[in-house]
């Protein structure tokens, strides 16, 4: 392989301007973290809400929840990005549509965050449903028998245990959100993958660029993993099966 290695490239200036390539990557990393964390918040809130209603005795709510999950699980994330960016705004009421297309601040960021948040929420909803249904039926009965309302039974009895049970798949989901955020480059979010492509073209040092980006994504996902492991440890229930080391 004839390749001119240059690991110093990150500290060199870009072709037209006085920034360094490193500053490009750091700014890209910032947007990656921003998109990931914001969509994680959306995904958790919606995922828990939808996963929960899918286990209630209300048939129409269950159907609605199931339809939501199927919709977002069966379309590729990249296609969903384009749908939210190019298609959805066309179907909004006229004034809103114009505003979204022309005036909405940080349009790419907002669109990518909503898209990734909803996509991930469908996956979390599935895990939450499975977590709740894995609890013994008697737990719900015990909560209700004591006089708790159904929402209270979920709040104090079922969800705290279901959450603990699904921490392992939730950990994967939290890591996925960082990795999936790379798709946002397709609609022009200036995140890490976008900046990497730009750096590759500008510097012609593709190998160094993508190796650096690989390390940065790995570190993000790894930190996410460690954070969840910490939560898992803190919420461990003594004497419960899931607490076994």
């Amino acid at each position: 392989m004839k390749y001119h290695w240059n690991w110093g490239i990150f500290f060199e200036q870009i072709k037209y301007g006085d920034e360094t390539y490193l500053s490009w990557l750091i700014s890209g990393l910032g947007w990656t973290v921003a998109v990931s964390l914001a969509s994680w918040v959306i995904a958790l809130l919606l995922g828990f809400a939808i996963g929960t209603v899918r286990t209630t005795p209300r048939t129409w709510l269950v159907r609605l929840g199931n339809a939501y999950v199927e919709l977002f699980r069966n379309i590729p994330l990249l296609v969903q990005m384009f749908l939210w960016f190019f298609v959805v705004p066309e179907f909004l009421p006229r004034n809103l549509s114009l505003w979204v297309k022309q005036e909405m601040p940080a349009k790419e960021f907002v669109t990518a965050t909503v898209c990734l948040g909803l996509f991930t929420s469908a996956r979390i909803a599935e895990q939450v449903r499975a977590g709740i249904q894995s609890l013994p039926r008697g737990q719900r009965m015990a909560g209700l028998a004591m006089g708790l309302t159904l929402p209270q039974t979920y709040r104090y009895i079922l969800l705290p245990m279901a959450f603990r049970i699904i921490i392992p798949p939730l950990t994967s989901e939290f890591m996925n959100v960082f990795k999936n955020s790379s798709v946002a480059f397709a609609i022009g979010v200036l995140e890490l993958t976008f900046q990497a492509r730009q750096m590759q073209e500008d510097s012609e040092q593709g190998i160094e660029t993508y190796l650096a980006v690989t390390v940065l994504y790995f570190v993000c996902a790894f930190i996410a993993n460690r954070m969840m492991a910490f939560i898992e440890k803190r919420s461990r229930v003594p004497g419960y099966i899931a607490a076994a080391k």
Partner: protein
Amino acid sequence: MAMIEIRDVSKWYGTFQVLAECTSQVEKGEVVVICGPSGSGKSTLIKCVNGLEPFQKGEILVNGIGVGAPGTNLPKLRSNVGMVFQHFELFPHMKVIENLTVGQIKVLGRSRDEALRKAHALLERVGLKDFEQKNPGELSGGQQQRVAIGRALAMDPICMLFDEPTSALDPEMIGEVLAVMQDLAREGMTMMVVTHEMGFARNVAHRVIFMDEGRIVEDATTEDFFGTPRSDRAQLFLSRILRH
């Protein structure tokens, strides 16, 4: 007026009838044991009493309030009726003491201090005051069931339902749970108990209901039931379980 009034209750799962025209009542202070072969509907019947299982025909009144009636505040009714389950169903993520306070605080609106006082007293009573900071998973089955009884009593119930409270226990732990129930009965608690413990029925119950295939086949005083049960089915049942 009876504390629990069961009138002509029928229930179906699809086309399969699990309860057929069940009628009985439990007076205030009375202890009634429900027994019968598995699948006879006894657990289903007791779960109908606090509305955990819906039923399609008939009515059940608890302290004069209709369980299946539209407009009945079921959570409020249930907060007055203590229930103990076969598999304990303590809340695993809460400390023992929290299992006894959660209902008092969230349902009855008691202050934390008041709830804690009550919980301490009840744990002392069921002989588990040293375990209040443990999680349920760290307790034996018998201890868990005693906590579960304490949890139900913490709500100051007007009556108690026991759904096979000793069926999931090792033989040596059955005694400690029955002893707590026996004390409760002596103090005049109204109790409906689904159990196979015929010794308990004989010593503690005022009346015994025998069920088979969703029907109440026998409803007799304890003396009559163990003396001269009238139905063949009940005689067969007794001869089978008393032989051991």
